[in-house]
């Protein structure tokens, strides 16, 4: 296997010592000392509860942590859990930690985990985010069982979320992936997921690892590869997803690793998505979505101001990316007051599709195209917040469904501008 050459000798030796396994848990880390200890304990507990007879290994791919994260992963012992859980292992549960070369990049981490899974011939693998402070032992079974027992290739997670969490997911990624690829996966950008050895090996061989830089957004590439590869996909409800505080400056990097990856994949997947019409649900174990309606503090005024400022200041950039009618419409709504402001679903979908086509044509630097989307996304978020501020969980879900249908309805427009736009 060619890909083993990037693994260190020491890591290979440890893998050889482990031998073949049934279950592999991948844990990509980078300075996660605060949370990783409890996460590893929960993983161990989950394996012992759900798969006590299976041969299992935890592979920690670390991006060069300086806070002792790898030591915490390998240092957690089963003995730490015995007093509270009364669990007994029938087999040794190995923990191996390795540091990959290219700094903190989710791509290098996943590549290491996939290569280890292939070498160890793991039947079912999962990847767990080290930031999942609310992880429960059941998450492990929920992700592993569909692969190990039911023969699925990819298990995507679904979560219980705060109603205004994950707005990029609900307003762009989920509806766009659903409309274009025809598969209703709620969390295409997956912090936790399960996969079969078959899918892992195929992705390891096919993905252009050197082209994708440090591999930001590799999780989304993985999902899209599973869809385009015709793999058996299901969703599994895990539980409450922790609300992670974000700073304003985090939006652009997030857009790069999600929307940027999606736009770039559309180019190579054109022959697949351009022929798909409508969408189909995927089998879901447990609830497909759950919303918490706790009140959240949001500075709506600032969101709208950033949208209006962006539309005014970036006019020349938008004229390169968007059609004149879309620019005109954006300028019109940017002048509206807070109460009248409405970034409609149709305008939002047209905006996103025109951005995708402009990205494909590289009308300006692709990174600049992604950056230019940030103020517009804030405008859409503002409208979403206003529309749903006192909405029930069902009403919010209906609004998301309406947006998804709008993405599906306007798909021919994307195909048209994709083919014809100069």
């Amino acid at each position, binding site marked *: 296997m060619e890909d083993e050459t990037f693994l260190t000798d020491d890591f290979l030796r440890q893998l050889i010592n482990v031998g073949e396994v049934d279950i592999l848990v991948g844990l990509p880390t980078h300075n996660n000392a605060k949370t990783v200890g409890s996460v590893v304990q929960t993983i161990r507990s989950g394996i012992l509860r759900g798969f006590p007879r299976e041969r299992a290994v935890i592979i920690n791919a670390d991006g060069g942590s300086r806070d002792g994260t790898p030591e915490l992963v390998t240092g957690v012992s089963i003995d730490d859990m015995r007093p509270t859980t009364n669990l007994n292992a029938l087999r040794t549960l190995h923990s191996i930690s390795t540091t990959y070369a290219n700094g903190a990049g989710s791509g290098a981490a996943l590549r290491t985990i996939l290569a280890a899974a292939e070498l160890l011939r793991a039947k079912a693998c999962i990847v767990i985010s080290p930031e999942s402070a609310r992880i429960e032992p059941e998450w492990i079974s929920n992700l592993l069982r569909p692969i190990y027992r039911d023969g699925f290739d990819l298990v995507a997670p679904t979560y219980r979320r705060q109603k*205004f*969490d*994950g*707005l*990029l*997911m609900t307003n762009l990624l989920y509806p766009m992936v659903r409309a274009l690829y025809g598969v209703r996966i709620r969390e295409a*950008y997956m*912090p936790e997921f399960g996969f079969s050895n078959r899918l892992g090996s195929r992705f390891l061989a096919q993905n252009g690892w050197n082209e994708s830089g440090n591999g930001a957004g590799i999780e989304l590439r993985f999902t899209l590869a599973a869809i385009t590869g015709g793999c058996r996909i299901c969703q599994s409800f895990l539980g409450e997803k922790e*609300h*992670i*505080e*974000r*700073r*304003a*400056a*985090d*939006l*652009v990097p*997030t*857009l790069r690793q*999600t929307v940027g990856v999606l736009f770039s994949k559309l180019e190579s997947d054109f022959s697949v998505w351009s022929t798909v019409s409508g969408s189909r649900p995927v089998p879901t174990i447990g609830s497909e979505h759950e919303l918490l309606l706790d009140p*959240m*503090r*949001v*500075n709506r005024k*600032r*969101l709208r*101001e*950033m949208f209006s*400022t*962006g539309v005014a*200041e*970036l006019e020349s*950039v938008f004229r*390169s990316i968007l059609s004149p009618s879309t620019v005109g419409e954006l300028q019109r709504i940017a002048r509206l007051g807070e109460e009248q402001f409405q970034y409609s679903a149709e305008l939002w979908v047209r905006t996103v599709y025109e951005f995708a086509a402009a990205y494909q044509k590289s*009308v*300006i*630097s692709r990174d*600049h195209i992604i*950056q*230019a989307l*940030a*103020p517009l*996304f804030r405008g859409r*978020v503002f409208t979403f917040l206003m529309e749903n501020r006192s909405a029930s969980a069902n009403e919010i879900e209906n609004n998301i469904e309406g947006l998804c249908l709008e993405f599906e309805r306007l798909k021919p427009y994307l195909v048209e501008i994709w083919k014809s736009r100069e």
Partner: protein
Amino acid sequence: MREMIVSELTQALHDLARGFAHYLPRLIVMLILAFIGWVIAYVVKVILRSILQLIKFDKLSENTGASQLLSKAALPTATEVVSRFVFWVTWLGFVLTGVSVLGILGLQEEIARFFLFLPHLFVAMFVLFVGLLAASFFSRAALLAAVNANMPSARIISLAVRSIIIVFVFSIVFEELGLAEQTMLVAFGIAFGALMLGLAIAFGFGGRELAQRFLEEKFVRGRKEQNENEDELSPL
């Protein structure tokens, strides 16, 4: 006396005829070279135009802002300008080679200097194009970064970045062409210094409150984090 005049006149006519006979083949060679040069220059122009159209050079020059400059000056598209420029330079090169065949003293040296100048001209054009491209790219990058960081006067920041790069590029271009090097150096120094001083004064006076806010937010971390968390929702 009459015989002397006739003899001198005959001699002069004879010299003229000999000189003409001496120069006629060279003149024909020059004309042939000029004609061949025209044909070659035309072919080069057509090929270059096709290549530039193929690589969407007009789109690229639109991104650099060069197209807008050309359209303001009522000039044709960037592809047309470049292909015409190459046509004229190529043809002029052949014509001058032809002229040098005539062997006119003094012209030889000027022609040699022209050919030595050509590489500098091409380098200057290349620097100008890449410079405009860089100015456009970095000014847009500054604009986007400033807008996304919610900084006031994002367009002014972008314009300042563009101006600095363009001034710098033009100073390199003039130096490469060897045009008024000293004047350009002094002018560049004055312009750049004035720009920096202007920015320093502008930020010092105009942006006093902004600087104060920035420093407060930078060093009073708690306040910054509180503001930011209040403003942003987790997108994923």
